[in-house]
């Protein structure tokens, strides 16, 4: 079974001053294959730490993650990652960026070229293969980052605020693209976001996290991602249910933020 299981994960950072920062406490969940999970929370609640742990860039101080019944121990190709700024290699062209993973595997060149064409078409970048990435707009760069991640055929796709730096229009188009890819490939996707709307739209499941120490505060199961597959995203946002949930979560996060501010003040 290619489920992601978090089993009582604990993460404590020790600062050079000796101070201990409890970033994550007792996080447990199971993410089934093909699920779309979005994670939301106030800043400093450990969202990115959670993602880095799953990606294998960090090792938890307690508990463990398992994917495909294997403990996660370091970065791996089966967990693809899309970063906020794209993290593209600007010295390579679009096609070379997308091809990067296959090239590292020393895959067959003709086969790779065909796959690159295919993925560029899926993300809507056909004909841009030979363009240098620094000439692309932010939205197009994120499309390249998506294609670069997906061409490796990962079991789990981790997205770290992938649409955070885009303008509102591009953002909506990209949200549709993510939903489309989720539907067509049936991949498990985990998205971290700051935006409540985005979390609602791109979350079949939604975790709201609380800070100090970072922990899962509340879980939602939401219909909006399914709706978004067939409807215009703006229509989904207009729906009353959407508004209700959004207000509920906003109040929750607002309270948490206030609590933090009160603590520090």
């Amino acid at each position, binding site marked *: 079974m290619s489920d992601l299981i978090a089993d009582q994960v604990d993460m404590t950072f020790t600062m050079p001053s000796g101070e201990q920062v409890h970033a994550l406490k007792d996080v447990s969940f199971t993410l089934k294959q093909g699920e779309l999970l979005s994670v939301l929370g106030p800043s400093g609640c450990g969202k990115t730490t959670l993602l880095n742990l799953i*990606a294998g860039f960090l090792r938890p101080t307690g508990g463990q993650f398992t994917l495909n019944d294997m403990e996660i121990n370091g970065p791996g190709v089966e967990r693809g990652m899309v970063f906020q700024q794209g993290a593209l290699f600007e010295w390579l062209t679009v096609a070379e960026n997308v091809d990067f993973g296959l090239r590292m595997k020393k895959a067959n060149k003709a086969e790779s070229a065909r796959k690159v064409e295919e993925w560029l078409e899926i993300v809507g970048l056909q004909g841009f293969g030979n363009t240098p990435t620094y000439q692309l707009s932010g939205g197009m760069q994120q499309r390249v980052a998506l294609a670069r991640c997906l061409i*490796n055929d990962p079991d789990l796709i981790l997205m770290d605020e992938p649409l955070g730096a885009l303008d509102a229009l591009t953002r909506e188009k990209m949200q549709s693209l993510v939903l489309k890819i989720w539907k067509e490939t049936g991949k498990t996707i985990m998205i971290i976001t700051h935006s409540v709307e985005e979390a609602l739209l791109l979350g079949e499941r939604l975790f709201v996290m609380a800070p100090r120490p970072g922990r899962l505060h509340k879980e939602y199961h939401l219909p909006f991602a399914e709706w978004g597959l067939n409807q215009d995203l703006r229509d989904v946002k207009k729906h009353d249910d959407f508004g209700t949930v959004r207000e509920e979560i906003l109040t929750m996060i607002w309270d948490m933020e206030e609590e933090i501010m009160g603590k520090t003040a």
Partner: protein
Amino acid sequence: MSEVFASPRGLIVGGLFIVLLIALIWAIVYGRKLARTEVTDLVFGNPQKALGGWHWVISGVSAILIFWLYFSWDAARAFFPNVANELCQVAKVESAVVPMRSAFPFESRLLRGTSLLSRDSTQIAQIRGRISNLDLEAEQVGSIEPLLDRLGALQVSLASPDSMAPETAAALDGIAARINELADQLDSGELSAEQVAAIATAREVDPGWGNTNKEIPIDPITERGARYAAVAAPLLEVSKEYTSIRNNSPAFLDEVAAIDADIKALIASTDSESVAQIGKDLTKVLKRIDDAVIFPPSALQPVEYALANLHEVHRDQQGSLRLIDAIALPGGRIVAGKTACTEQGSGRWLPKPSDTIRKFVGLADPTRGYKGHALLWYKQKTLAEMAGFFIPDWIADLVPGEYPRHNEAGEIGQNLKSKILNIATGNFASPSVPIPTGHIWDSMMRVLTGLFFGIVLGVPLGLFMGLSRFAKGFFDPLIELYRPVPPLAWAPLILTIFGIQDDGKIFLLFMVAFAIMVISARTGATGTQLSKIHASHSLGASRWQILRNVILPNSLPEILTGIRISIGVCWGTLVAAEMLAGTTGIGFVENVARKQNDYEIIWITIILLGLLGLLFDLVMRWVISRTIPWRGKG
């Protein structure tokens, strides 16, 4: 003005000078006209205003060339080819009368006698003051004071016409008369037939300024010059005579001898050290008065008048020459020596463009070159020679077996080992290929070799230091300790260890390039975004693949900038190192030229160094724009 453009070189230089002047004026007029017609905004500091303006480039280049032609006196030589020779003759007269004129208040404030009198009186007064301060017995004071009085009286006697010997007065009058005579001769402008003939001969022997190896022909080649030359020699004689005249009458000499004896008696009679010291000081004053170059002012008047008169004639006779000297020969003057006249000031250290080009053509000729080495040429080298240079000999030693020994018949056989040795030492027949050679090539190869090793060793270490705390901590002190030392401070040590030939210089340049490359590669590696490393990890890249495909290309902008800086610094260091030691290279050429005061060659090397440095930088800029167009856009 008939002499203008007398030679083809004069024609070219003079013509060029006029063309440049016209270009300069045109560009300024055009630029001003354009500025008036253009829409001007009122924004100060608008960078758009600095765009375009090629006509200002013309004016700038023209201004530099005009400046060069003018201050090197090349323009003066083109327009007035005879003027240097004439000024040389004038300078001869001037230097002949300098010893006489310096005794009179022409260029100085006081008559020489006046300043001597005041100085010696001051010293006598000082000694008098010291006596009263010293705790001396009345008897000693009684023997010193009269001596001081007598010294004062002796000196004053020189200023009195009454005590002057009649012969001395006659000699001074004679000098004045001869100066006046020579002034009249200069004024009359008459030349003997002999002198006129000498002009023609001089013209044939040395046709003019800068046409032969001698800078300025010393013998007069014009009539005006000949008139000055005609009085210069007798004036020198008069000068010598004047400086040998002494105002010493028999009575003066007797008194000097008497005072001298009394001072010696005083020193001999005393045990007191301070009295002996005063005796010595008195002797010093006496020795100066003994020179007897103080004359009564009235006796000197005729000589002073004669010199003033001569000076006036000397000025009048120069005529237009003085104007040309002031305008066309700026920044220096022509000076007469014993055997030659020379240019001094900017005419000397700023070589004339035409001479510089002639010298450069000579240098560039591969059959001549400089010190037996062409500037930049090629020579045929066999492939075997190159193989012998690049393949180390010990490769043959590694081959199993023994080298062949000679047999009883004295023959030496060959085996695999000896055949490989032949290849390693370049001992085989092969075709030859042309290889560049020359001072310029040698300098360039030293820089490029040093740079090559600096890059090959510095970049990996720099990347390592950028990624590893151990490497950074371990190697940083080493590099930071030697890097700030000016490269030339290392030179004496390095040249001693590695030798003054290529090895030492290349190692020195390697040291320079290495530190810069380490630091730039380190900066590049440190600047890699963590998200890019994370991304490549997630895409399945191994450590080596990340280093090769992410960290290295990401550091490329810093590395290339480092190379560009290294080339510049190496180039500067190399020339200085070549000046210290060696037998080839541009720095060597400049050093030899410096020792020989060959200003043309010095300037040629300066210009060559500038152009080659610019060439290196342009190549690097081109490489940078081609290889890292993404720079600053990631």
